């Protein structure tokens, strides 16, 4: 008589412990979801406060390259001042190779003429290291300005180049 009772109690204990663990996992997952939702709100708030749309300038970066090209880093200057420099991890290189577009820079810029200089450092398919600089004149109006830097490294044997595309 006592043995079945003991087994039942043990089963209940195991079940409770398992449910409790599952519940902890579920709660962490729920919390993670809530934090993700909160982060979305905060990203929007952050951009609204720091980079209001009509003074905002955004520079995106994408890579159009064949196999063997490896982007090490990109430096961006606006009007001669360092705006951002980014050193790429393997994960980020893969994200770009899969068609991802990075928002390289987000900041504020008054209306008028500006100079945007970009330097890319990387390695080509023949293990040749290169450093390539490109300079662009941009004209910022009274509204948000968005540009896309495209690293064009799709031609074997040729050094990669930057192309600038303006988005309206």
């Amino acid at each position, binding site marked *: 008589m006592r043995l079945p009772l003991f087994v039942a109690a043990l089963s209940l204990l195991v079940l409770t412990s398992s449910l409790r*663990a599952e519940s902890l996992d579920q709660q962490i997952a729920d919390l993670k979801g809530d934090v993700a939702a909160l982060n979305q709100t905060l990203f929007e708030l952050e951009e609204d406060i720091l980079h*209001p*749309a*009509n003074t905002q300038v955004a520079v995106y970066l994408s890579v159009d390259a064949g196999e063997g090209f490896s982007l090490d880093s990109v430096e961006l200057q606006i009007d001669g001042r360092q705006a951002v420099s980014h050193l790429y991890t393997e994960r980020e290189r893969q994200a770009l190779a*899969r068609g*991802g577009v990075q928002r390289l820079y987000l900041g504020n810029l008054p209306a008028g003429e500006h100079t945007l200089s970009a330097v890319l450092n990387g390695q080509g398919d023949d293990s040749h290291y290169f450093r390539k600089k490109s300079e662009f004149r941009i004209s910022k109006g009274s509204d*948000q300005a*968005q540009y896309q830097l495209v690293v064009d490294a799709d031609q074997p044997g040729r050094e990669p180049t930057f192309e600038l595309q303006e988005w309206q």
Partner: protein
Amino acid sequence: MVARHVGSWLGLCLVLWLPLAGKAVASVPEALRDPLALWWLDTGEPARALRWASSTPEGETIVARAQAAIGRQAEARHTLMNRLRHRALPETGRQALVDSLGGMPAVEQTSVLETLAKGTGVSAEEATYRLAIRDMADEAFDRAGRRLARMPDGYWAALGYLNLGIAYGRVDRAPSRSLIALRVALSMLNGAEGTSGAADLRQRTLMTAGLMALRSDQPEKAAGFLEQVSLRDYRSPQALWLHGLTHARRDNQRAAMQSWHRARKFPLAFPGAAEAMLGMGRAYDASGYPGQAGEAYLKAISAFRGEQVTLEELIGEVRSDGAYNALVGTVGGEDVEWFLEDTKGLARPRLAYLLRYLESGEHQQRVRRVREGRRIRQSLERRKETLQTFRTMLEDRLEQVLQRQGSDRMTRIRKRIETLSRRVQEARQTLEDAVANGRSRVVVSGALARKLATVERMKSAGDLPEQATRRIRRLEGVLEWRAQEQFELSSRALEKALSSVEQSLAAARDSEAAFTRRLDRAPARFEALLKRVNEAAARVDHLLGQADELVERAESALDSDLIAFLGDQTVRMAETLDASEQQIARIYEDLAIRNHQQNSGEAE
């Protein structure tokens, strides 16, 4: 003048330009939304991916993958299955769907897996593997085998055959089917070197095969598998211990001791190391060297006692600092995966126990819960600090704007614009009168205007000689003739200049009005932003409270679990120590009997 005035209020604008900017919500070009979301997702920020992904089919897949990454499995599954039904789910989405099947009814899971298995790529391989595992659980081994036979070489096929080998081992008395399956698993890995998990899977397969062969009394076959196990793995001492056993079974104690000698150099936390220490004593004993056997047991006893002290210290540390700190502090990093891949633990007793603890997937999950909770808490604390900075900045800006709104400076600027407007109006009136009355003197400019002014001054000086007065009149007549001649040209030039001034002034007035409007709207905008900041801060506080509670629960569960594990290890060590002491007692007893018999023989 107008330019100076415009510069003055532009200066004021510059002071406030950042927060006064009107449009609040910036956007991303439609064509870049999904690529941008993809970047965030692939670089480990799924929440940002959720913000930018579009509502296109591609965007939906990204959203679903991001939802799966942040634990919203049910939502992710719903979208992904919908896309799968429309045959428009890319490989990345298929992999996300496989990962999000947990918690779904078994029948539906099977249906989804069957659909995925018909495709190609890693998702199809994993789906087939999972279906084969279900078949094995139902003891439908032939069906599982047929599924696995259709898979291409690689990690998932190898894992399937390893499981099939283990499953055969549970039901078969003879190991032949198991060993064949395990050999197939090894061959499936031949092309997968370098892929994630392949090396570890190979070690596991070799160990399993070695153990099965040894159990079925096929020591040579077992040695063949075990000799391929890497000696840079925490399974090495167990492999060496088993390898020694294969020699001992064939009565080659010397070769057995060579393997065990290597195995006992590993920390005692690893399976096989303690057994090898005892094995050395037994092997010397079996070889007829009781003295060396005694020494080997004494060495083992000393090592086991030392190990008990290590375990006691480790348990004490876990009790005082917590299991997570003991694990992370010892490892020097936060990544469980890194810890498992690291080989430093192979030589350090404390690390070895923690590594052993982390062997189990369940234990790893316990550590991940704490790590996840701590990361969430850390990110929330950072968010809280950022929001506090925003709050201070917005309050400062609001105060600045309110001060500017009623400031004398703005009033002075407006008055200045009005004064300038009046002057422009007067100038225009004068010009129009002059044009209407043909008063050429009024409209002349440059050298002619200067000369006429000089003549006027000379005339007004008075008391001039008659001759000089006549000359002045003549000169005046010539100048007036010239002025008349240039009248039209001069009036047009003046009209143009006046229009230009009027335009500049109008622009200044518009800008001032726009700035005033923005200045008027600024408090409401700042207050709205402040409200959003305060609401977000309240949400952060609420979630921080939840995170604190969850971290505490997860840490407490991990502490208890690790202490229980170390307690089990202490018991294991005590049992091993007890066995050594019994062995040494027996050897001494044998030696004493032998000595006694010798002495009795000599006495007779």
